[in-house]
């Protein structure tokens, strides 16, 4: 039999005004196991807490029930008080007789029996409470950043500056990401490379940052504070230590392939760095196009390389490391607009996407920075921009707004006017969205000062005729059909999640929305956390966003990671699930429904007849378990139970609440 003490709070008149405290105390004395009952005006005050600690010591109490406000309010206060008296804090139960009783009922005759029922339930539960310990977990003082775009770079720099080691895993040969592909940034028209390159170099040179380019994450195991990650460093076929980045190899290389960095608008060599400011400035050999790998002869790069850094025998290398925190910053892709036949994308060289047009402006881009048509090399005089290609498209299951297109279209229209002064732009839009500092002003400048005609409407068909493209649209403000003979069409193709996002999400253990953008833990209050403790998200992998937002989110994620890494030990959840392995039949339904991958199969040995039988049962990792208890419900045999909210505790509460006295 437990020795339970019941303490009832008046909360001034908040409780005492509606609940008859004396009656409640008297009734509590008759609950099974109750050896002491008392009341006080403000139990949460220091005096009130003293009453509890004293009573625990004097009456040798091993369970405490407090009838007070909501446990969401003061459970911790009272648990601490109990702990002070040497009692395990989890042996205390709260009966919520304020928010759930005195404040919602007016009649003392009614509220008092209800308060007693709630207390009886709390006492019945407390009798079954067990002493619990929250696990204390080690923290590996190192962070992993997945993705080396501006979000990843920023997060890594912030974490590194706080004094922690960071590894950046980037799947491309260079860090830089999407931002490296941009010509200028809105609304200031800064040169993108000019502001990004110093950050890239800083990251590369930072003593706390370790760049793992041309690498991918293969496996993530473990949990907050102790993620065990396998990283595959793909073979570059170039020894990064010997390579000086002199460029002779890619100059001499005879074979070519479409450049990913240039969106396929131009070619690069088979041994290449993706762009001129690449970090690290170490080329990779693309096996698919390399003559040596395809046909077994050539080897020109090997012959020409002054420091003899070419190594055709190089193999993928698996790096296994432990990290305390992970920041996922894998960025976005651009929708391939060929799914819209009416826009003719892919069928004419002068129909481009926004990102492709971005490369046309760039001095190191496919046209050397000259804004010309890819079809005939002449500057375009009439350019039609079409918005919302694949965004806000319910019919194709992409309901969301890509957020950046309105602004970059305005930017591109301005840049166009600067490069081709006699050019005229037309923008077909549904709505212009310019939330952001200086954004509206910027867009208005485009419309008012740069000869950009904004047409509220959409385009129904584009087709080539003679040497131009006929664009048929509507202006819904005048309700006139519009036909424009354009030289070039730029499609603001939707910002979409990376194609491999679902796979990466599974690998890392975070979930996504229906568009495969990673989910934050709370849309308002936990914007960079995920549901998996210790894993944070930043940048466009979470949702479309522009550079300043991405950078702020990256810094926010970094701060969260730093906060985590700065802890000596982590306090885990005490109310975790627990498997009774002798009863567990090993069906592992619990594993299937656990949102935290906290349950894994484990093989145990059992005596059977004269020998030993091996069988599989479930095991809970208390460090990963967050205590939702869904496993305890999916387990038909009750072989997995939730500490603190166990089957017998809840049943005891039901029994007690239903007992009408």
């Amino acid at each position, binding site marked *: 039999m437990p020795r339970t003490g019941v303490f009832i709070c008046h909360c001034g008149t908040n409780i005492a005004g509606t609940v008859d405290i004396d009656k409640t105390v008297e009734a509590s004395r008759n*609950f*099974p196991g109750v050896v002491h009952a008392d009341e006080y005006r403000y139990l949460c005050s220091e005096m009130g807490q003293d009453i509890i600690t004293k009573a625990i010591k004097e009456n040798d109490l091993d369970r405490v029930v407090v009838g007070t406000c909501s446990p969401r309010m003061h459970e911790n206060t009272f648990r601490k008080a109990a702990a002070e008296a040497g009692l395990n804090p989890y042996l205390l139960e709260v009966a919520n007789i304020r928010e759930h009783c005195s404040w919602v009922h007016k009649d003392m005759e009614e509220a008092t029996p209800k308060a007693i029922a709630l207390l009886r339930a709390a006492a019945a539960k407390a009798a079954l409470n067990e002493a619990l310990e929250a696990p204390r977990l080690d923290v590996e003082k190192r962070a992993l950043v997945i993705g080396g775009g501006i979000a990843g770079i920023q997060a890594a720099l912030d974490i590194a500056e706080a004094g922690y080691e960071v590894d950046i895993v980037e799947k491309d040969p260079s860090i830089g990401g999407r931002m490296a592909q941009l010509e200028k940034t809105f609304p200031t028209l800064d040169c993108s490379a000019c502001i990004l390159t110093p950050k890239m170099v800083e990251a590369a040179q930072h003593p706390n940052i370790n760049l793992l380019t041309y690498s991918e994450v293969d496996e993530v195991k473990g949990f907050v504070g102790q993620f065990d990650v396998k990283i595959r460093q793909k073979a570059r076929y170039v020894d990064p230590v010997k390579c000086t980045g002199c460029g002779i190899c890619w100059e001499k290389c005879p074979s070519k392939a479409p450049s990913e960095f240039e969106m396929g608008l131009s070619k690069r060599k088979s041994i290449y760095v993706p762009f001129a400011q690449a970090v690290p400035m170490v080329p990779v050999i693309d096996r698919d196009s390399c003559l040596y790998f395809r046909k077994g002869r050539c080897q020109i790069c090997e012959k020409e390389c002054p420091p003899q850094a070419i190594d055709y025998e190089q193999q993928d290398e698996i790096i296994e490391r432990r990290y305390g925190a992970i920041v996922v910053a894998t960025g976005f892709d651009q929708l391939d607009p060929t799914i819209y036949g009416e826009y003719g994308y892919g069928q004419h060289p002068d129909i481009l996407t926004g990102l492709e047009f971005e490369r046309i402006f760039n001095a190191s881009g496919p046209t050397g920075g000259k804004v010309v048509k890819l079809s005939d090399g002449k500057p375009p005089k009439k350019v039609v921009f079409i918005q919302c290609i694949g965004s806000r498209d319910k019919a194709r299951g992409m309901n969301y707004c890509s957020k950046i297109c309105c602004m970059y279209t305005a930017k591109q229209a301005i840049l166009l006017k600067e490069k081709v002064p006699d050019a005229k732009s037309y923008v077909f839009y549904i709505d212009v969205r310019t939330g952001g500092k200086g954004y509206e002003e910027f867009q208005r400048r485009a419309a008012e000062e740069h000869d950009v005609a904004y047409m509220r409407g959409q385009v129904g068909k584009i087709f080539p005729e003679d040497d131009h493209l006929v664009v048929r649209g509507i202006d819904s403000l005048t309700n006139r059909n519009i036909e424009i003979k354009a030289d070039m069409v730029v499609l603001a193709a939707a910002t979409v999640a990376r194609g491999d996002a679902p796979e990466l999400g599974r690998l890392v253990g975070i979930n996504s929305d229906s568009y495969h953008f990673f989910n934050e833990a709370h849309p308002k209050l936990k914007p960079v956390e995920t549901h998996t403790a210790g894993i944070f998200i930043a940048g466009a992998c979470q949702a479309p966003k522009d550079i300043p937002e991405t950078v702020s989110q990256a810094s926010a994620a970094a701060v969260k990671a730093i906060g985590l890494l700065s802890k000596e030990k982590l306090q885990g959840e005490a109310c975790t699930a627990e498997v009774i392995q002798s009863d567990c039949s090993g069906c592992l339904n619990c594993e299937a429904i656990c949102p935290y991958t906290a349950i894994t199969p484990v093989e145990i040995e059992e005596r059977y007849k004269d020998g030993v039988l091996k069988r599989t049962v479930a095991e809970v990792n208390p460090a990963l378990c967050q205590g939702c208890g869904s496993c305890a419900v999916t387990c038909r045999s009750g072989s997995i139970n939730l500490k603190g909210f166990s089957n017998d505790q809840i049943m005891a509460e039901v*029994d007690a609440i239903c*007992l009408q006295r």
Partner: protein
Amino acid sequence: MKKVIAREKLPELWKSLAAKGPLFLPIQEGPVVLFQPWSEGAEANLDAVNTAVSAKDVFLPREETYLQYRCSGNQLELIPVENAEPVIAFGVHPCDLKAVEMLDKVYLDQEPSDELYRQRREKTTVVGLSCREPDPFCFCNEFGINPADAPGADVMAHLKNGLVLLEARTDKGKALLDQAGDLLQDGSDEKFEAAEVKTADFGLNLEGLPENLKERFEDPVWDELYKSCLGCGVCTYVCPTCYCFDVEDFGHEGEGQRFRCWDSCMYGHFTDMAGGHNPRAGRKERVRQRFMHKLQYYPETFNEIACVGCGRCLRSCPVNLDIVQAIKALGGETVEQR
């Protein structure tokens, strides 16, 4: 005393008898016939050869509260339970009644006897009912039981054409027939000649079987016999000679009751011990226990095999693992049959 009543008048008889206390009858309950208390509107079925569950429910109910308690402060109040009101069990076939005699040996003939059982047994008037046609599972002949007569009955009943013939054999029986009063007519002239009923011949030879089994606890036959057993409790619950029970409390802080209810040696928890040990942890041990109990332990104490050939386990076992199979496997089969 011999009486007679037309079958169509029986509902009136039931009504009259049930007025004084519970009247148990073979009652058609949906697709099955069960030995149950009669109530207005219930459909008695005297033609059923065997009820799905035996008549032992009357004497050893599946659930029986025998103690109640109430607590206040440090006081514990025990409240005795009056369980036995006069009961009539009407239509008990000879095999079932023979089985009750076997229960008597367990519960009454040993010291201390079982009070609850005694009370019920004494207050129960048994109306035996002769069998007319066996079903394929009946094999009571093997145990020397005459399906036409139940020697232990207070009243023996026979169905004959449209009549039920009733012969009181004990004082209790006479009292019962008296109780029915005018509903019954004199039957002194009726002839009670039940047809000879021949039950299934499975070719059993029970001679010396119990003695023979004494040394066969570790016999390899058990390694095979148990295999098909699913571990359910059908055989024990339909069996008229199984008599094990469990005790459980129901209650809360203030008050509660203690009751006993049927238990089955086929259940894994049957022999769970407080320390966690279970001497009959596997199905093999449990199957062996049941058959050894019927064929060796009971006979060793009471000089007869604890089976009456009612055939219920043959009919109800979902996988057809029954006592006849066990007897045969253990060598209780006539040689010619092999």
